[in-house]
């Protein structure tokens, strides 16, 4: 990338697919600090996009913009046909259709695992309690911890908590799942159990955007990898492209550190 050509890198989804997320010319500032600069990104249905980059590169901010946890100042974000504008209804619509998993789990400590999971379906989707609990148990089973339903988050290990968080997001039946460094806060020996769940999810065809440093995960299920630095998309490509022949010097420097 040259310094004199500010033309942004486009991370468009492969043609032929049905785009579910479209981001055009996204710019965001924290005060005077320009965190996201001319981001163009689209994601197809069923695609798994892995976002990597050094800390402070804006990758978390990017996916937090997608469900409007962060407000953007410029550009368009369209999720499943709904554009994120200043309209409160649109924001709520988008949040319903996207699930998010956080680095620090953010389970609600005052609710049991089951209550954590059924809270939003009952309150937002207006499901009946029995229906919500049935779905919740189904997903708990799926993430491999059906027996923990009545415990409080504080009684679970980190890996179990993160799996509950995934089940919580899935129970809402989202069209897109956003993962914000889901394994960074975990002990090395439990990272595997969370990744397993994510891999299974990807293989079932869930649309996922994953901010992570787990290159093994990227290689196994990632359709595309995006490298971000200083609020910009630096390079886009398949996992293989990144492991074998990264183009940009910055990408090489970064990969040499984490691999």
């Amino acid at each position, binding site marked *: 990338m040259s310094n004199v050509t500010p033309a942004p890198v486009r991370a468009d989804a492969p043609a032929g697919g049905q785009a579910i997320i479209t981001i055009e010319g996204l710019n965001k500032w924290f005060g005077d600090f320009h965190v996201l600069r001319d981001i163009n990104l689209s994601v197809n249905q069923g695609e798994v996009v892995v976002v990597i980059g050094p800390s402070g590169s804006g990758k978390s901010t990017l996916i937090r913009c997608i469900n409007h*946890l962060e407000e953007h100042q410029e550009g368009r974000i369209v999720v499943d046909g709904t554009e994120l504008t200043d309209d409160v209804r649109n924001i709520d619509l988008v949040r*319903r259709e996207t*699930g998010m998993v956080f680095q620090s789990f*953010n389970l609600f400590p005052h609710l049991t695992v089951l209550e954590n999971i059924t809270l939003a379906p009952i309150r937002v989707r207006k499901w009946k309690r029995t229906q919500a609990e049935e779905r919740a148990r189904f997903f708990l089973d799926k993430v491999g911890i059906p027996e923990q339903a009545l415990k409080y988050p*504080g009684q679970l290990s980190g890996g179990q908590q993160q799996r509950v968080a995934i089940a919580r997001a899935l129970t809402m039946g989202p069209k897109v799942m956003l993962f914000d460094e889901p394994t960074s806060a975990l002990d090395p020996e439990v990272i595997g159990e969370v990744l397993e769940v994510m891999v299974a999810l990807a293989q079932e065809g869930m649309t996922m955007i994953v901010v992570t440093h787990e290159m093994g995960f990227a290689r196994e299920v990632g359709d595309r990898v995006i490298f971000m630095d200083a609020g910009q998309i630096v390079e886009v490509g398949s996992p293989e492209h990144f492991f074998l022949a990264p183009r940009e010097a910055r990408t090489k420097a970064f990969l040499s550190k984490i691999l």
Partner: protein
Amino acid sequence: MFEVIPPRPAPGGVAGVGGWIRRNLFSSPANTLLTVVTGVFVVYVGLSVVLWALFDASWGQVWANQRLFAVYRYPADLLWRPMAVLAAMMALIGVMGGAGRRNEILRGLFWSLVAFVAFVTVIALLFWPSVRVLWAGVLAASLVGYAVGVARPSFVRGLPWAWVAWLFLGFFLLYGVTPGSGLLRIVPARDWGGFMLTLILFTGIVPSFPLGIALALGRRSKLPAIKYVCTGFIEIVRGAPLIMWLFVASLLLPLFLNTDPNNLPAILRAYVAITLFSAAYMAENVRGGLQAVPRGQTEAARALGLGGWQTTSLIVLPQALRAVIPAIVGQAIGLFKDTSLVFIVGLADFFRVTEIVANQPASLQVTGGVKLELYLYVALIYFFFAYRMSIASRQLEKQLGVGTR
């Protein structure tokens, strides 16, 4: 060859009662001297207090005026009304205690109150024929409440509404409905007083609770107008002492409502002042709790699609309030003590009754006066309740501290 060395008892001075005494009282010559000097001091003071209380003090006036201390001039034939309210209160606390009987703090608080009620009941059975049945009824109501709580723990969900209902019905029962005579005749507020009034004013903490939460949320609002109005209210109210607000409220409330001061009983004015004052402090406590809830909690809730109010009421507030229960109990202790300030608006609460009793002709005839006795008695009663609450607050702090780790 390896052999396990069997454990030996510790040498003297380390373990056991003797060791404890040595370490804590006689560890060095200076310490021994200190122990002896303070010991003599403690024994001297303790002995003189006990001797005075047993032989020199005249407790007759304290004993003779128990009804004034309890309800002031509330008519004797209508005592069943305050007692019914008290019974309902004890029953509600009983439900709480019964439902939460695995929580030793709640349980302990309940049984302390029951012990107090039982103590008074015994005295009533022995010496006060007119209120014998009533006190026995209060005791029974507490136990029934407890049994209900044990049998139907789910009743706890309705408790907030039960307390609100208690507050309103209790007021109407105390005040009465019909003029003239009869069982439900109106008892003017100026005849209310004593410990009953202290408890009534103490209930000001109930309405201050939702108000305080609203103020705290307002102060944390992103909208400047709401934020500054709430902040201003909180800081102005907290900036001045309660006694001043009681005085100011008693002056200004009739003006605010453009009504004759006699239309607004002093109790009402004091109650408004206490509630608003308490709400400002409650707001600061709740705000502390709100700040303690991590941002991630809100974000996770919003990411799940929960709306602003849902996030606040289902996710943030429950966590915030749980974190500040000890602070709220501390505030309750403060308010309980501060109800004694209503003397400034001419109310005869528990504290003020003391002065009234002290100036009775019978009190003035006692050689040396009875003020010391009266104030010690009042101090003891206040101490019993405040200290019991502060123990509970400490236990709560400990429990929460363990819970978060």
